[in-house]
């Protein structure tokens, strides 16, 4: 569900801290340094990184290509290989039978079984392409406001972690308490009352 989709989900963040100037160059360097790397010919099962909003399969952050008006727009890409458990089981059984035949033994140790399973997963990972999932990010740097186009818990957690690592800025998710604290313009006395609030009762 990308930014331009007909129906989207948005999780809102407040970004705290300032980037080194010039900001566009700093963001470009951070995105480039942590851009997505392909894992189709590797044994890795999952990878996460930044990619271009308008060209997610060929990330390019040159020439402020991620600047749209006052917004910085880019995407988080999570590539994951999903190997069906039954496929792993099939090749695990084949490998185990072969090992038993070669060694002339009737049983394998726990450690040997684990090594066979890891070997099978590695082999299958090389043969199965990763499935990409793309989540758009729209950042208004001047307003310290950022919209992440997904409500999925795992995607939000990956995003928060990669953003903090890449930009060295802290992200605060805007939910009722943080919205009240950061964006509602409450006075000190109102903030004190907020901290002590307990649930209301509308029943008689």
């Amino acid at each position, binding site marked *: 569900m990308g*930014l*331009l989709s*007909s*129906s*989207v*989900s*948005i*999780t*809102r963040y407040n970004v705290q801290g300032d980037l080194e100037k010039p900001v566009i160059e700093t963001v470009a360097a951070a995105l480039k340094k942590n851009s997505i790397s392909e894992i189709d010919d590797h044994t890795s099962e999952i990878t996460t990184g930044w990619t271009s*909003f*308008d060209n997610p399969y060929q990330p390019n952050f040159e020439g402020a290509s991620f600047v*749209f*008006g006052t*917004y910085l*727009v880019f995407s988080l890409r999570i590539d994951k290989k999903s190997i069906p458990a039954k496929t792993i089981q099939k090749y695990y059984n084949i490998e185990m039978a072969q090992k038993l035949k070669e060694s002339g033994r009737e049983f394998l140790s726990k450690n040997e079984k684990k090594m066979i399973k890891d070997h099978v997963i590695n082999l299958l990972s090389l043969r199965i392409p990763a499935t990409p999932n793309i989540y758009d990010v*729209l950042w208004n740097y001047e307003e310290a406001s950022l*919209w992440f186009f997904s*409500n999925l818990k795992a995607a939000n957690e990956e995003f928060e972690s990669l953003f903090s690592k890449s930009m060295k800025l802290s992200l*605060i*998710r*805007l*939910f*009722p*308490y*943080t*919205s*009240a*604290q950061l*964006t*509602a*313009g*409450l006075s000190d006395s*109102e903030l004190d*009352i*907020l*901290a002590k*609030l307990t*649930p*209301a*009762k*509308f*029943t*008689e």
Partner: protein
Amino acid sequence: MLDVAVAYNRFKFLGDEFLTWLWFVIDNDPEYLKKLSPEYADLEIGNRMVLENRKQQAVESITIKGDDANLAEGILALRKGAFVTELNLCLKLKDQEWRFTIKGESLNLSGFKTPSTGPVETAEDVAGAVIEKAYLYDQVIQLIDTLFKNFIKIRTSYHWQDQVVSMIKNWIHR
């Protein structure tokens, strides 16, 4: 400030109270919305509402769906101690329409549909489309911020306990 995870759980009731208050305001006091901005007068309850009653040991959840759904079931749930936990809203401005669902505990938006924008046919159209979409999303984000800010100002004032709670009780139990 409290640890974020602790604050999320400790104060998630605020979001549910916000949505319940918002339903009350839309149903009873559209003038209040008009005072915040003349454009907000046309804010309507949409086609989905979820209420939860967490007062009992097991959480009771009621979902009301449908374009012309009868919300009496929702009022009945409020009477028993439930709060609105998810609310679909519809904002109409002139001939344009926005639809979106807010979740109380997170204030996350989902099923967010804006008025239609021009087609993206060339790479040059993308920048314009992004800026236009961002503007359209921002209309609703600003609406929510304004409403939440007003709610939280009332919620942290004496006015809440002295007047608002009684008015909401009267609405639920009339």
